[in-house]
């Protein structure tokens, strides 16, 4: 009897691994091995020979050099710009997609039509396409300019305040264009909220404003977390992102090469991880509390 049970557990293990085995093989070849090699490269001098590559360990020299050479300075500059952008854009994208999801969740005509418009950018926004749109002035700058919007802001606000707002508007469409998937995720979450809760709240005298803060938003909190992470990853890997462009350029730069490029990639990786970690620290404890309350 005991033997039967043992073999059953073994069988279940074997079957399970036969399904996910292909992922583990892929993970080992295309993730784990490159990940470790990348760490080694980042601490080595990597030279390309005709037959292959030569890797010579030299400790943290690459990392130190990021702060010493010209290429390193441009990289750090790009990194700081990227961080500023993330801190600025992620909240806008999240708030905006919640807003659109809430609007689309109302019982209105043409819901499907609007939903497909808001998702459309996901289908077409590749690096080169967005690049063309911005350089050809279809990115939104001229829409606000031609309707006098920019002038109004310039005339009414202090220059220190007006400038970031104008910059924001010149790229606003691009920011909006990054929120397609997030809108759908929020929308799917909203549709799971029981309508009766809202009705009960209305009977108890809660207005739409209160309902939004006390029912809608709490029910989305776990999705807010998911969407923040998604947005960070999306922005961090977008092909027109200057940091990752730098990393690629330095791969083929004689002064820097694979070793330096790997070191930069690791600096970038660690910073993105810290960002995600901070977001997790802010959101995960809250969710645990929310779960406790539900019980």
């Amino acid at each position: 009897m005991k033997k039967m049970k043992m073999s059953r557990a073994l069988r279940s293990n074997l079957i399970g691994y036969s399904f996910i085995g292909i992922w583990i093989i892929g993970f080992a070849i295309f993730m784990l091995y490159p990940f470790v090699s990348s760490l080694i490269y980042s601490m080595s001098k990597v030279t390309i020979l005709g037959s292959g590559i030569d890797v010579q360990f030299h400790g943290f020299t690459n990392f130190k050099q990021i702060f010493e050479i010209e290429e390193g300075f441009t990289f750090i500059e790009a990194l700081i710009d990227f961080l500023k952008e993330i801190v600025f854009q992620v909240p806008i994208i999240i708030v905006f997609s919640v807003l659109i999801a809430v609007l689309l969740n109302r019982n209105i005509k043409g819901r499907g039509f609007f939903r497909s418009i808001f998702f459309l950018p996901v289908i077409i926004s590749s690096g080169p396409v967005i690049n063309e749109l911005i350089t050809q002035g279809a990115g939104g700058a001229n829409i606000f300019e031609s309707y006098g919007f920019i002038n109004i802001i310039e005339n009414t606000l202090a220059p220190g305040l007006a400038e970031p707002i104008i910059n924001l508007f010149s790229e606003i469409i691009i920011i909006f264009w990054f929120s397609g998937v997030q809108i759908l995720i929020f929308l799917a979450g909203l549709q799971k909220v029981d309508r009766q809760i809202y009705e009960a709240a209305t009977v108890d005298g809660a207005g739409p404003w209160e309902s939004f803060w006390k029912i809608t938003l709490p029910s989305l909190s776990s999705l807010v977390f998911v969407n923040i992470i998604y947005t960070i990853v999306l922005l961090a890997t977008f092909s027109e992102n200057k940091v990752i462009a730098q990393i690629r350029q330095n791969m083929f730069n004689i002064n820097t090469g694979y070793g330096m490029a790997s070191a930069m990639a690791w600096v970038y990786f660690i910073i993105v991880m810290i960002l995600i970690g901070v977001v997790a620290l802010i959101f995960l404890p809250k969710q645990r509390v929310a779960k406790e309350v539900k019980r």
Partner: protein
Amino acid sequence: MSKSLKKKLYRFVYGTQGTDSPLSRIVIYILLIAIGFLYVYPMLYMISSSLKSQSDIINPMVNWIPTKLYFGNYERAFKVLRYFPTLGKSLVITLIPALLQTMVTSVIGYGFAKFEFKFKKVWLVLVLLTFVIPVQVYMIPRYVMFFKFDLLESPWAIILPALLGQGVNSAIFVLIFYQFFRMIPYSINEAAEIDGAGPYYIFFKMGIPLAVPAFITSFLFGLVWYWNETYVTSLFLGSAYPNLQLRLANFVSEYSQMYTEELLRINEGVRLAATLLIILPMLIVYFTIQRWFVEGVEKTGITGE
């Protein structure tokens, strides 16, 4: 003011119990239309400019509607992009990886959803991590690896990772299938097992047919993400295997090599015509089967707890 008018006004602003008031409806529509316009503005701008001749583009009087429809931009963009041969190349590194990735991740997702095995949680966490780690970290060694095996500049550099569940956003698809198969009750599996069906038989005969919506959604998202991926593609394939996106990125220089006449100098009309040609295939896919994109996110339970 009569009482009934007051009442009507009240209803207009606050609505009757349980429904949106007419006023809030109007506000919602205005907001949606205004933001919707912002969204499609680049598209409209693109279409309008791409149909303008050089003189229309310079003419400040011509705003949205060209004086006459001019297809010369498309003609030249078509030639510079070498559209059909390049489209073929694009499809090879879009359709094949998307298809393979969907099939492989469905198997993996099913494994995670339906079986208990050691270190399952560890593997699941690793799947999640592969999504968060930026591709830049592991791309250089991958590049070296493909170089060693002589796979650079060949579609295999894109196809192989997809085949082993490590393609573009593969982790998301594993999670989609994991969530989806978890929603199917265990009793179905148990009943089939009692009837003597093996696990693989159950997967093929019951799992796959039940998961058709997840398959379609995953395939479509894979298609779109592979189509729009340019960073890794351009690194691994380079100029030896240019797809449409790379041709667009190099459009200006290739154009000026092909058309040297002053009269046909590059302008925004040609560039936007080229851009439109790049997104056209995906637009066609989207507008013919768009419900699978937007409803797919809800149906596949990606937002599940």
